[in-house]
């Protein structure tokens, strides 16, 4: 859709990232950037290192080599929760919701990093604590409305169907109001209708909130439709980087997808 590269400065840049587990090289010398306001896709066959890349970005894995620049600053080794505070939120390939909690509480947890009343007021549930709770509840209700999940507000998420869980997880990531949103296969395992819904949410998030999005996806059609730029990984190496059209024409990508291992 947005075939033009959106104008903007660099939000995140990874430089020469290498990551290995024992002898297995998961990522080798990967560099790319993400610009403010764009939808950036990371694609590649299974085992290409896509999820590892996301894990590096949000600090869960620490690469042996390379640098991560975020918002103009070189990021030193950080714990995941510190990265979250900087403004990077994400969803997970296998749903990682808090199953014992309701939809509402899951979304409220997403706002954790924005809340700050101390133990004393929380214990009393009066004054600043109540006020803060209500402010954030309003924000969360806004997201609930946006994702059309009002009816499951109080339902424990463990009881929800798969598609709904995916949607709640997106909601939880949105609740953080981050600068960068990482989506790890947001449409995996969905039927066509659910995928269309999800695509719309992603684009709406990008449009309405101006959130920068990096996503991993297998469905090439979806990727080509919604992303501004695509980076292609294979066996931990960067194969190609460019607009969907450029990538589609890249011979190495065609080989990897058609010749080596075929992905839907």
């Amino acid at each position, binding site marked *: 859709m947005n075939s033009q590269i959106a104008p903007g400065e660099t939000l995140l840049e990874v430089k020469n990232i290498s990551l290995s587990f024992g002898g297995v090289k998961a990522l080798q010398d990967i560099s790319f950037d993400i610009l403010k306001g764009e939808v950036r896709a990371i694609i590649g066959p299974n085992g290409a290192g896509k999820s590892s890349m996301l894990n590096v970005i949000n600090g869960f894995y620490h690469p042996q080599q390379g640098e991560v620049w975020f918002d103009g600053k070189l990021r030193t080794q950080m714990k995941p929760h510190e990265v979250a505070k900087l403004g990077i939120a994400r969803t997970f390939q296998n749903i990682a919701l808090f199953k*014992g909690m309701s939809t509402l509480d899951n979304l409220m947890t997403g706002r954790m990093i924005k809340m700050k009343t101390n133990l004393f007021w929380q214990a009393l549930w009066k004054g600043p604590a109540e006020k803060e709770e209500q402010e954030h509840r309003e924000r969360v209700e806004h997201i609930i409305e946006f994702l059309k999940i009002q009816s499951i507000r109080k339902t424990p998420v463990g009881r929800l169907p798969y598609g709904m869980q995916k949607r709640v997880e997106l909601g939880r990531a949105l609740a953080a109001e981050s600068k960068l949103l990482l989506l790890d296969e947001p449409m995996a395992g969905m039927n066509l209708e659910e995928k269309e819904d999800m695509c719309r949410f992603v684009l709406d998030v990008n449009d309405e909130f101006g959130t920068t999005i990096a996503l991993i996806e297998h469905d090439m059609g979806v990727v080509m439709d919604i992303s501004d730029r695509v980076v292609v990984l294979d066996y931990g190496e960067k194969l190609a980087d460019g607009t969907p059209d450029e990538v589609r024409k890249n011979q190495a990508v065609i080989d990897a997808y058609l010749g080596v291992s075929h992905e839907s």
Partner: protein
Amino acid sequence: MFYRESGDFKTSYSGDQQIFPIAFDRWVVIAFCAFAFVVVPFLINDYWEKSVLVPVLVWSLAALGLNILTGYCGQVSLGTGGFMAVGAYASYKLTTSFPEMNMFIVILLSGGVTALVGIVFGLPSLRIKGFYLAVATLASQFFLVWLFNKVPWFYNYSASGQISAPERFVFGIAISGPNSPPWATYLFCLTFVVVFALIAKNLTRGRLGRSWMAIRDMDIAAEIIGVPPLKTKLSAFAVSSFYIGISGALFFMVYLGAAEPTEAFGIEKSFLVLFMIIIGGLGSIFGSFIGAAFMILMPVLFKNIMVGGLGWPTDLVAHLIFMLIGGLIMFFLIVEPHGLAQLWRVTKEKLRLWPFPH
């Protein structure tokens, strides 16, 4: 038929966020508290105080504390007995060193001391998980009991290492020592329990509670969305130990009046509190209460029925009680693995829809 939520609309978020969103529940609880505060003190006698009400209150507080750690934050702990000992010895040292200190402050400070100790012994939880952590917390249990048994400073150098609660007053009425009237000790404990149950509810429904539950449900995901694991786990250890410390202080000062560490705060106590929260319901404030009541009152009830009522020999009854308690635990777990609180919740949900099954 009065038990309905339809027609009970919420027009504000604060209305929706209150502890008992259903009006009927709210009124029942308020009525129950009023009964406990206003009526019971006039009916209570020594037996009800020492054998039924005060033990249930004290253990409820301990169960609340452990439930915060285990039920809400998912960190299984078997150090409860040791932490209760910390509370008890802190209160002993405080009252004997500062005889004029107000008893409310003594008890709260004992909780504070226990919270600090809890933080120290909570540190391994960052690396160790599940049953490994449970067994590792036994280290604190055994070490603390050994310490209080070994270091004479803790028991004021008395000959045998026993500690006895001195007589202390609140508003001129004795609440510890042998001359304390039953209603006074009962009300003293009840006040703590009600206030801290309310605080526990507030904490668990707010930011802190959500971060605990996030760690419990999926610690890695929680960390990635911004819940700092160490701080969160330690805060759970601190709050939990605070409660357990208060409970230990009340256990010693108000309920027993005398204690020695090996017997009063042994490993069985740690297990007992864990049983309470599992049988009552993990992650449920209400469950802590019914769990404590179940584990404390069932043996007393069976004993009174079988020895007092039927006149059976005490040893046979003691064996039968073990079998009955064990059997009931297994029975309830099979009927409802998530504890008595869940059983109650399901019953209420059915009641809400009654007489229509769906």
